[in-house]
C-alpha cells in the first residue's frame, strides 16, 4: 500500500495516489461497497505570544471511509486512518459485519435504475476550479519561522518608531499566528462517480495590545495562495489600530450610525448561512419563511429581504472564496445566487432534502461568499 513521501513538500495524497488507494481497498471487498471516501488533511501552525513565547503545531490526518447500504437508504460505513493492507482488510470486514444483523437478500443489491441513490452514483460533471497553490504547499515546510521572524521584526520596528503623541504610553505585546494547510478529498463510487478536490489554505493573524490591556488592534489575512499573504502589512495594520484605540473613552448606550470593517461584516454574515437552508424556512421560526401568509406562499423568494445594495452569491471559482465544486458526498455544487440587489433569489437544498423533493441539490449556504473576503464569510 502506497504512502506519501514524508520528505516531499506536498503533505497530502495526489489524485493518482488517492485513486490507487481507493481501488486497492475496493479489491478487498467481498460485498458491494457503494463508495470510498478519502480525506487527507495536513496543517502547520506557528504562534508567537507576548513577543517571545513561540510554539508550533503540526497535524496530519488521513481518513478512509467505506460505505454501503442496507435496505432503502439506510447506510452503514466504517472509517480508518491506517493504510496498511492488513488493517484495511480488517476494517472492511467489520464494515461487512455491520450489515448482517437485519439484512435481507433484497437489500444487498440496490439495482433499481430509478432509485435516486443509484442515479446518485453515476458520473457527474464538475466546474473546473484551482484551489491548489504550490507556493502554499512549499510554505508548509519553510514559511512559518521566516514569517514569524519577519512579523516580530516589523512589530519591533513599529514599536521603536519615534513616539507620537498618541503612541507614547504603554508598550505593545503581540500575538501572531501563521497557519498553512492542505486538504485533499476523493469521493469514489462504484457506480462511476468520482469527485476529486485538492486545496491549500493559509492565514496570518496578529493581535497587538498594550501591556496595560487598555488598547488593542487586530488584523488578519487568509488566502489559498501563500504568495498573496502580506505579513508586514498585517502587523502594521494591527499596530495602527491599537494606536487608534489608546485613550479610549466609554461609549454611552444608545443608537449610533456604525461603520463596520470588512472583517466585522464577515463575522456578521457568516452567522447567516443557516438562514438560506430551505428546511428551516418552512418551520415556524424562519427569516425567509412566511408562516400563515394569506396567499399560502411559504417562502419569501422574489421578495426584498435586504437593502438593495446587497447581493450575495456562492462560487467555487471565487478568487477569494473558492471551494471544492462538490458536496461532501460528491454531488456537484455550482455557482449560485442567493440575494440579488436585496431580493431573495434562491434557497439551499442539501443532498437529502433534494432527493426527498425530487430536486437537484443546488447550493451550499455555508459556503456563501458575499460582500467581503472569503474567510470572514465562509463557514
Amino acid at each position, binding site marked *: 500500500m502506497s504512502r506519501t513521501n*514524508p520528505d516531499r513538500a506536498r503533505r497530502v495524497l495526489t489524485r493518482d495516489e488517492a485513486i490507487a488507494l481507493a481501488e486497492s481497498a475496493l479489491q478487498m471487498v467481498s460485498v458491494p461497497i457503494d463508495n470510498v471516501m478519502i*480525506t487527507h*488533511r*495536513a*496543517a502547520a*501552525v*506557528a*504562534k*508567537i*505570544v*507576548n*513577543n*517571545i*513565547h*513561540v*510554539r*508550533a*503545531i*503540526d*497535524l*496530519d*490526518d*488521513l*481518513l478512509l*471511509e467505506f460505505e454501503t447500504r*442496507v435496505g432503502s437508504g439506510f*447506510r*452503514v*460505513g*466504517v*472509517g*480508518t*486512518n*491506517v493504510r496498511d493492507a492488513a488493517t484495511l482488510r*480488517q*476494517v472492511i470486514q*467489520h464494515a461487512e*459485519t*455491520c450489515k448482517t*444483523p*437485519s439484512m435481507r437478500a433484497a437489500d444487498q443489491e440496490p439495482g433499481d435504475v430509478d432509485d435516486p441513490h443509484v442515479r446518485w452514483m453515476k458520473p457527474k460533471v464538475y466546474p473546473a476550479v484551482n484551489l491548489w497553490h504550490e507556493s502554499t504547499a512549499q510554505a508548509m515546510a519553510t514559511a*512559518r*519561522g521566516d514569517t*514569524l*521572524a519577519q512579523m*516580530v521584526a516589523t512589530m*519591533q520596528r513599529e514599536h521603536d518608531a519615534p513616539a507620537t503623541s498618541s503612541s507614547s504610553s504603554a508598550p505593545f*505585546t503581540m*500575538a501572531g*499566528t501563521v*497557519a498553512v*494547510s492542505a486538504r485533499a478529498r476523493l469521493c469514489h463510487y462504484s457506480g462511476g462517480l468520482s469527485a476529486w478536490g485538492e486545496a491549500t*489554505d493559509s492565514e496570518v*493573524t*496578529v*493581535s497587538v*495590545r498594550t501591556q496595560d*490591556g487598555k488598547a488593542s488592534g487586530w488584523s488578519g489575512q487568509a488566502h489559498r495562495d501563500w504568495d498573496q499573504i502580506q505579513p508586514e502589512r498585517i502587523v502594521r495594520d494591527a499596530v495602527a489600530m491599537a494606536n487608534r484605540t489608546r485613550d479610549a473613552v466609554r461609549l454611552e448606550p444608545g443608537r449610533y450610525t456604525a461603520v463596520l470593517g470588512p472583517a466585522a461584516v464577515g463575522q456578521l454574515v457568516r452567522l447567516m448561512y443557516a438562514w438560506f437552508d430551505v428546511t428551516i424556512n418552512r418551520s*415556524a*421560526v424562519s427569516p425567509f419563511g412566511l408562516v400563515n401568509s394569506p396567499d399560502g406562499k411559504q417562502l419569501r423568494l422574489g421578495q426584498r429581504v435586504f437593502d438593495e445594495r446587497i447581493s450575495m452569491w456562492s462560487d467555487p471559482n471565487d478568487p477569494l472564496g473558492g471551494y471544492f465544486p462538490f458536496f461532501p458526498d460528491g454531488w456537484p455544487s455550482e455557482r449560485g445566487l442567493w440575494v440579488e440587489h436585496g431580493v431573495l433569489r434562491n434557497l439551499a437544498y442539501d443532498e437529502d432534502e433534494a432527493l426527498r423533493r425530487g430536486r437537484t441539490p443546488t447550493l451550499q449556504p455555508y459556503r456563501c461568499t458575499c460582500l467581503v473576503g472569503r474567510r470572514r464569510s465562509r463557514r
Partner: protein
Amino acid sequence: MESISSPHTIHIPARAQHPVASFVPPVTDPETLRALARTAIEAATQAGAHYADIRVGEQRHFFCTSDFSAQLTITYGYGLRVAVDGATAFIGGTDPAPERLVRAARAAVATARGLAKISRPNIGLDTSRLPAVAPMPEVTGEWHGPVEIDPFSVSPDDHLYAIAGFDKLGEMFRGPVSFGGVSVTWTAETRVFASSEGSMITQHLARVLPTVSLSGFSQDPSVSNRERMMPRMLSILPAATAGFECVLGTTVRERVIQAMHDMVPWTTYKTAPVEVGRKELVLDGAAFGALIGATVIPALALDRVLGEEQDVSGTSFLAPPVSVVGQPLFSPSLNVSVATGGTHYDRRQWDDEGIIPRTFPVIDRGAVVDYFASRATISATREWSAPHASSVQPQGVFRANVASEVPRPMPGACAVASVAAGPSSLFELAGAVKDGVIVRGGDVVPDQQGAGGVILNPLVFEVRAGKITRRLLNAQLEFSTKALLKNITAIGGPSTVEATTNWLYAGVPVTVLQQAVTAPAVHIQNGNVTSAALRLS
C-alpha cells in the same frame, strides 16, 4: 482554520444484540501504545530536545439517542510536545506507525530549534535559560476509571432500551409538558503519557455526556405557537465519569417524572411582552452555572490570562493577576472551586502532564485566589501567588479532549458552592424580590474577555412583591460580569443546584473541551433586562 482532528465514525445498526464493542476491532494493547510513546520520546531526546512529552490514545465514542440513532467513533491520535532553548513545538497526528512518530519527533525538535533562534535576536532575551516546561519528578503507573458496567460491553438494543425508557415515561405523563428526548455519548479511552523525565502512565478513561430535555407548553391561549413552547434542558443526568450503571435504576426515572411535574406550574402563567430596565434577578442553577462557565472559568485559564490566546479565543478580564488576586471583586458569598474525584466529569488519576489533579478554590469569598496553570505557565504564577494559592505547584488541570490535540489548562469539573441553610427553591428565593424576574436556563454568549455578555433565550418570569405574576416574552439579559457577581445578595441551598456542560473552544486549529459546572440558584440586585424584540427591530 477548521479543526483537523477528525473522528472516524461508524454508523452501526441502532437495533442489534451484539455488544457495541463487537462492531470495531479490539482495543489496542496498552503496551503497544506505550512502545509508541517510548519510541517518540527517545527520538526527540536524541534529536536534541531538552524536554519532551507525549500523549498517545485510542478513544472510542458511542453516541445513541432515544429515537433510534447510534454511531460509534474511533479516534487514534498522538500529540508530542518538545522544548528546545525555551521554544516549544507540538506535533499531533493520527498515523500510528512507529516510523511516523520518529519523523514527527525529529521534525518537532527542528521546528522548536528554529523558532528559538528567531525570538532571541529580535527580542534580545536569551530564552535558552527559560524552562519551557517546569521539571517534575518521574511518575509511573496504570489507572482504571470507576466504571461498574462497561457501556461498550452492552448491546445497542440494551442502550436503546435503557434510554427509550425515559421517552416512555414522558409519553405516560398527562399534562402540558412533553419529554424532549435523550442522547448519550459514551467515551472510553486508553491514554498513555510519557516524558523525557522517565514518566510512563497508562490511564483507562471513561466519560458520559448525556443530554436530556423537556418542553412545557404555555396554557395562555393568547400566545403564538412559537411563544407557547418552553424548552428546558435537564440536569437529571449530569456529565460524569461513569459506566452504563448511571442510566439504570429507578432514581433517574423518578427524577424525570419529578422534573415534568415541576415544570407544570411554570406553564400556567399569563404572558406579556418584557419591559426593559434594571430589575432584581433570580437566576436558577442552570442559568447561573452557564454564566459562570462562560465568563469566570475561561478567564481563569492562564493561557488566556498570559495572552497566549489573545488572537484566538480571547484574553481575560481577570488580568493581570498581580492586581486581581486577593481583591474583593465579587460578592463575598461567591465561592468557586475545581472538583475532582468521585464521578466528576473527566476524572483522571493524572492530567495530560502527569500531575495528580487536586481540588482547590479559585474564587474564595468573592476574591480570585488561583488560576488554572500548566507546567508551561506555572513559572508565571510565582510573582503574584497568594499564600493559599495552589498554582505554585501544577494543579493537574492540563487536558486535551483527544491525544492529538494541544492540551489546555482547564479542569473537567467546577462547582459553585451552595449555602447549606440557603433558600431551598426558586420560589423561596423569589419571595424576597420586590420587583424583578426569575431567569431559567438560557444560552450565555460572553465577550472575548469574559467581562460581560448576554443571556439569550431564557425562560423569564415576572416577580412582584414576592409572587410570580407573568411569563415575559422575548426577554434576555445583558451583563457586566464583575457588576453582576458583585451584586449577589443570596445564594440558594443544595436543592437548587443544577448541572450544566460547557463547551470551551480555543486554539488554531480549533480544539474543544467539555466541562461540567454545578451551581445553585442566586438572587442578584440590579440586573439589566433587555428585549430580543427590540434587538431585532
